[in-house]
């Protein structure tokens, strides 16, 4: 457990030092969401209809864009190799890095999402469901995204390639989340959707770190 806390602390400190870099995905999210009314139409009904999809797809892209930072700088300056040589569980190390990344990128996204939802005339009574789905799902996005980044670390064209690898895996999260939101919009029960997302989160938490560790080893060949 020590390695988890130590790495978590270290990464959060680093994130605090690189505040501007960390804010970029958030700004990207805000700008892209506000492009939709300009590109589609400012029509109230249309916007509120597409709002869950727009916010969710944009959140996927924003989180994907930020993923590269999770290992990149540590890989480039060699500290990742040192961390992997440390005694202790590599899985915990990966979990710590993903958690730190989620706290610095995922959480701000969840906080800003309701504001962006209002810009798209998102029905106010469904905003809680938007936040809950984001809260459960953004860790899944970070975990799966970490696999893509770990697989492409030693390649020069890593960024776009890792998005290409990982985006198809985001599909179930996108589907379950937007369905939960549309159920909440029409006042239908949503707990089933949350349970599904939660199960997916637990499964990812257990299985994905092993894939990340294996991928990091391949990258350090």
């Amino acid at each position, binding site marked *: 457990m020590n390695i988890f806390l130590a790495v978590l602390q270290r990464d959060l400190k680093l994130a605090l030092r690189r505040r501007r870099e960390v804010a970029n995905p958030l700004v990207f999210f805000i700008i892209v969401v506000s492009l939709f009314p300009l590109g589609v139409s400012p029509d109230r009904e249309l916007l509120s209809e597409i709002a869950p999809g727009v916010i969710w797809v944009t959140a996927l892209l924003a989180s994907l864009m930020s993923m590269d930072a999770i290992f990149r700088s540590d890989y480039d300056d060699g500290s990742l190799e040192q961390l992997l040589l440390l005694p202790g569980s590599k899985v915990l190390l990966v979990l710590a890095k993903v958690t730190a990344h989620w706290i610095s990128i995922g959480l701000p996204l969840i906080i800003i999402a309701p504001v962006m939802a209002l810009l798209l005339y998102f029905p106010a009574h469904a905003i809680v469901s938007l936040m809950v789905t984001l809260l459960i799902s953004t860790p899944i996005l970070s975990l799966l995204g970490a696999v893509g980044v770990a697989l*492409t670390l030693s390649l020069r064209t890593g960024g776009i390639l890792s998005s*290409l690898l990982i985006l198809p895996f985001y*599909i*179930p999260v996108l589907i379950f989340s937007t369905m939960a939101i549309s159920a909440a919009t029409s006042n239908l029960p949503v707990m089933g959707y949350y349970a599904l997302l939660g199960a997916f989160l637990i499964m990812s938490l257990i299985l994905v770190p092993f894939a990340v560790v294996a991928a990091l080893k391949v990258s350090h060949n």
Partner: protein
Amino acid sequence: MHFIHKYGSPNYFYQWSGTWLKILSALTLILMALGLYWALIISPPDYQQSETVRIMYIHVPSAWMSMFTYVVMASAGVVAMIWRIKVAEIVVAQSAIIGASFTLLALVTGMLWGKPMWGAYWVWDARLTSELVLLFLYVGVLAIYSAYEDPRTGAKAASILAIVGVINIPIIHYSVEWWNTLHQGPTVTKFDSPSAPLSMLTPLFIMFFAFKTYFFALLFARTRNALLSRERHTSWVQEILEK
């Protein structure tokens, strides 16, 4: 795990796969001829789908094989990661190419079936959508494999992605199916499985086995080529050349 190392050693694999390649090629030819005859001539037109039902006899096997190939690829990936068998690494890359071509065929034939039946080449039907996602997954495996200059590192990275993918495919599949039923209501299913008459099932299964033998023949042939080319400096390749 002695037998994995034995059958997976490049030299021994090359020997036993040669025999199997001949058997499988012959079987493929026979089954394809029989299947085509049955699918195009013997089997009657469907009362609902008319003659377009004949597209199903190649569409459904392509779709099945596209999924089967992914499982083969991921299994080879597991063997490659755990026992570091060179042949398994080659199989991962080669089955990705074959699988992508089956997926592409399933998509194209599905679209050609959809135009007369649904009135549009593309409908966001659960099966077509799943097939599209599967194509994305194959493209990802091929992209990561070819991104690495060293084929062995590329194969390891591709194996990891394939293993993550094979766990995710059922989840993706059911989520897409669910999304589809909630958004569109039940569409016309391509095969009402229990009621599909025997006259349709026979050509379907013959074609299915034909595609399966074709797949293994192709996979063996591709793997043998890759082995020869990669192991060109070893003694066993020299021995084969001298024969």
